[in-house]
């Protein structure tokens, strides 16, 4: 009976019905499981530049690995970092606690995607890589008027920036604080920052 009813409808009406069903279930899904299935059981490997800067300063025990090539490493690297370029790191085994970083997240992400099962729970990746270390820790922008609830965190950034020989630029905007408030457990990889190559635009 139901089949007969359906076959009586035009193709357009059937497609409209399909769109309705998919959209209605999308609405239900976004209330029942707003995050979808993508985050289930997925361990986030990120460590923030602030946490890492504290860890280096406190001389905590871990191996900090720079995945970029030797030339980039010579030009600038994080204090206490060792240079193990991506290709070599791909084939190595690590026993102790390891923190990886690359220029942006590109190499670290490739490594994590290829190796995260074999690297074990002691592995972490620096969120934002050298780029964020430079922009958000060494030479960060911070608001002139710091809201009370952010004071502890901002003071920590100022202290770390000074400790590592950076310099702070004070700006009007409060939005610059957003970065430091990220919950990295919920964060996805930041978009690859490609400087040369295709610039993606809409039509």
């Amino acid at each position: 009976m139901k089949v007969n009813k359906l076959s009586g409808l035009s193709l357009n009406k059937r497609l409209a019905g399909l769109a309705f069903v998919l959209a209605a279930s999308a609405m239900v899904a976004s209330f029942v499981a707003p995050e979808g299935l993508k985050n289930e059981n997925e361990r986030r490997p990120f460590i923030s530049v602030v946490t890492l800067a504290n860890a280096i300063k406190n001389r905590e025990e871990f191996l900090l690995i720079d995945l970029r090539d030797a030339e980039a490493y010579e030009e600038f690297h994080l204090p206490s970092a060792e240079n193990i370029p991506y290709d070599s790191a791909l084939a190595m085994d690590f026993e102790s606690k390891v923190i990886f970083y690359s220029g942006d997240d590109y190499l670290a992400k490739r490594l994590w995607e290829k190796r995260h099962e074999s690297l074990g729970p002691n592995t972490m990746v620096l969120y934002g890589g050298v780029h964020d270390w430079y922009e958000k820790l060494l030479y960060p922008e911070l608001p002139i008027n710091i809201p009370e609830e952010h004071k502890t965190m901002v003071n920590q950034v100022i202290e770390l920036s000074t400790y590592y020989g950076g310099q702070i630029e004070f700006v009007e905007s409060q939005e610059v604080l957003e970065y430091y408030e990220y919950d990295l457990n919920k964060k996805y990889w930041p978009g690859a920052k490609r400087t040369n190559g295709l610039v993606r635009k809409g039509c």
Partner: protein
Amino acid sequence: MNGPFYENGWIGEEASLLIALIIGLAFGFFLERAGLGSARKLAAQFYGSDLTVFKMMFTAIITAMIGVYWLSWFGLLNLDLVYLTPTYVMPQIIGGLVFGIGFIVGGYCPGTSCVASATGSIDGIVNVVGLLLGILLFGELYPYLETFYNSTPLGQTTMVQYFELPAGLMVFILVMVALGGFWLSEKFEALNASNEGE
């Protein structure tokens, strides 16, 4: 393996361009097959006698939207990496009006003028030439337009972020608007057709 393939490094630049070419050809082909290579059909949109453009474009939008929503929900597509054209309210309203005037006067939008040119239509080719000259003119005038061009920015924003609604609810609302719009436009077309018959 999840998307976007290019941003996630699954495919390189060459493969990305090749896929873009194939999708572009398919896009043009289906535009032509939907009848949008004809200036008469496109202009009829504005006279209310044939709303194919509206129905086709809105169908494409909600189809893509439903696909993107579900792919992202299942974890197959990372929306953070999908490029969004930044919103600039005033420049885009003015741009939309200029675009609309060009559309009704010329009879084509940029995509359909290329489609019409491919079928050998002379007015299509003239439109494409005009399009290129327009781009050149805009480029030359850009220093004078720059302040306006960058005014009233909202950044890379989506309706979900702007209205702070759950993504699925926004999908549902837009699909309902589309289906309602399709129903009304068919009524409207029928009305116009019967008026013409009299």
